[in-house]
């Protein structure tokens, strides 16, 4: 991959090759056409906010595999921003997710919402990745897909709340980042102008292309599914889905089927280690510097509290107590 030259060398040499010539050529061609292509990073996450009794084990811990899997909301907002850029300036929107096979569910949702192309990055070797290993694989996939001005992503995913994958992917690609974006204000003179939240206010930043932008949930409201697109793409399938369809049949048949789906724009592109220029040592658990040393289920200590009756007398005595403690009065 031509754009990957810098990345492995920089740490040792302390020389910063932020942009590589082949990459810039691609971009300037697109600027002439006034098209702004976006890659959107999306993630399927367990719905940690809505934990019901059904997913609780008898010992009071959560059975994670039973949690419903949903489209991380801020990523959906990121996709919406990309679609708005496309609506206004033209271009192509490509949604990318890394995850297990079932993550293709949210790629179909991306197609319903208006994505032009979708990629599932899936390989057992990618499993167990922390944010560093994840951003490494994502950056290699992005180099493979290529030809973009924007990378949009949600600020963070609700399963980890780390907000690290966006900036780390930008660093691996050697491109600028704008995090906590609220609005894409304008594109002019080959720069994008973005309003972002900061502590205690906001700032307006101007960046060159390409740029990675992470988006907060208040930025905009995702559009609803487009019925026509739902009808068109509900049968979109990845190669692994298709393999299941032809289970037991010859490989030739799967090739035909893949070709057929591709022709009909119904193929969810899949990228594995075979398709990417990745170093196995930097993927998955192996490539993750952080390790989970210990996990403790939250067991409530059963601390004792004084029960107060929800009556005027009960509350009155509580207020007396707090007044005695010099909290009230």
């Amino acid at each position: 991959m031509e754009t990957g030259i810098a990345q492995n060398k920089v740490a040792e040499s302390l020389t910063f090759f932020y942009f590589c010539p082949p990459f810039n050529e691609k971009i300037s061609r697109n600027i002439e056409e006034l098209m702004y292509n976006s890659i959107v990073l999306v993630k399927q996450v367990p719905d940690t906010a809505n934990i019901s009794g059904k997913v609780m084990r008898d010992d009071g811990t959560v059975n994670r595999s039973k949690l419903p899997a949903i489209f991380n909301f801020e990523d959906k907002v990121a996709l919406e921003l990309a679609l708005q850029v496309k609506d206004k300036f033209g271009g192509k929107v490509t949604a990318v997710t890394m995850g297990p096979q079932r993550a293709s569910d949210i790629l179909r949702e991306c197609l319903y919402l208006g994505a032009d192309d979708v990629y599932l990055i899936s390989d057992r070797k990618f499993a167990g990745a922390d944010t560093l290993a994840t951003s490494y694989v994502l950056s290699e996939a992005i180099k493979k897909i290529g030809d973009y001005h924007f990378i949009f992503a949600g600020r963070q995913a609700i399963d980890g709340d780390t907000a690290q994958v966006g900036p780390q992917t930008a660093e691996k690609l050697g491109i600028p980042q704008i995090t906590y974006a609220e609005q894409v204000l304008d594109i002019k003179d080959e720069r994008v102008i973005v309003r972002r939240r900061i502590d205690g206010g906001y700032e307006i930043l101007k960046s060159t292309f390409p740029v990675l932008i992470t988006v907060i949930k208040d930025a905009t409201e995702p559009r609803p599914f487009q019925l026509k697109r739902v009808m068109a793409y509900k049968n979109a399938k990845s190669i692994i889905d298709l393999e299941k369809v032809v289970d037991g049949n010859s490989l030739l048949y799967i090739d035909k089927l893949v070709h057929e789906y591709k022709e009909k724009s119904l193929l969810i592109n899949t990228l594995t280690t075979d398709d990417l220029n990745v170093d196995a040592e930097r993927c998955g658990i192996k490539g993750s510097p952080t390790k989970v040393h210990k996990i403790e289920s939250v067991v409530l200590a059963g601390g004792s509290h004084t029960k107060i009756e929800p009556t005027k007398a009960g509350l009155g005595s509580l207020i007396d107590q707090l007044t005695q403690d010099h909290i009230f009065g």
Partner: protein
Amino acid sequence: MNNLSKDVWVFIEQREGKPADVSFELLSKGRKLADNMAGNLKAVVIGHEVKNIAVETFNYGADEAILVDSPELKNFLTLSYSRIINELVIEHQPRVVLFGATVFGRDLAPRVASFTKSGLTADCTDLKISNVNYLGKDYSDLLLQIRPAFGGNIIATIISPDVPTQMATVREGVMEMIKVENPKAVKITEIKYTPVDVDKLVEIVEQHREESKINLKGAPIIVAGGYGLGSKENFKLIHDLAHTIGGEVAGSRAAVDAGFITPERQVGQTGVTVRPKLYIAVGISGAIQHRAGMQESNKIIAINNDPDAPIFEVAHYGILGDAAEVIPLFIEAYKQKLK
């Protein structure tokens, strides 16, 4: 790995020349971590005309301050700030680097961790130094990065055993800010900033900050509402009660997500950590992330209609009932007693 550094670094965040509280809180924690390893605590100060901040870090336990001061560094910008820290980290390989989990800290830390291939854990609620046996191998003096995870159902201890530098971010208010009794002699190492073209790929067009009128951290009384209130209208009860008893209004993350209250009033792991004299939690179930942000309050009153709500486990006083009934009674009783 032999010959690892024992130094703890803290990135000192400044906004318009004023240091962020969280940076000094991290120095106080960093002091303890450095002492545990018999290492040094270093403050990294980047900005313009910020030497006074570098001097102040010694009051919170710094052994040394690294100062990078230039007019071009007046405002935080990812590319220049991260490049400076990258170069410093690569050169000195500190054992631990801590950042505040502010907007800027959460922008900067992952970029630096990625470049230096360091382990990074976000929003830690506790940090410790400990010997660890991991997969049959002994490691001495690892940083335990402790945080609730997975919707608050678990508490995870994360380690970065095989890399030279371990990084973590911590929210404001989580660590206590402690002035040291006998500060070390001021020792400032100034590093010259040499701009390069890539530093300027992103420019600030304008910046707006309002002096926040909200001071949750300093409020002696906080009345917090949760998703259990059901609607923004019902959330008004929280305002009524806070107004009556002279408290600040706060909310749980679920209340923020539901739009009942603004994010800057969120208490919890991903919001503000508070230790008021009195904390009243109304309609808050009490997930670990919320409790992490309020359980050190002096007195806690929980009002909830679910007798099994975990919030009762940390409460000193529990009131089982509907907020819509309990709060008006509370207000009435208060007015009768104290007005």
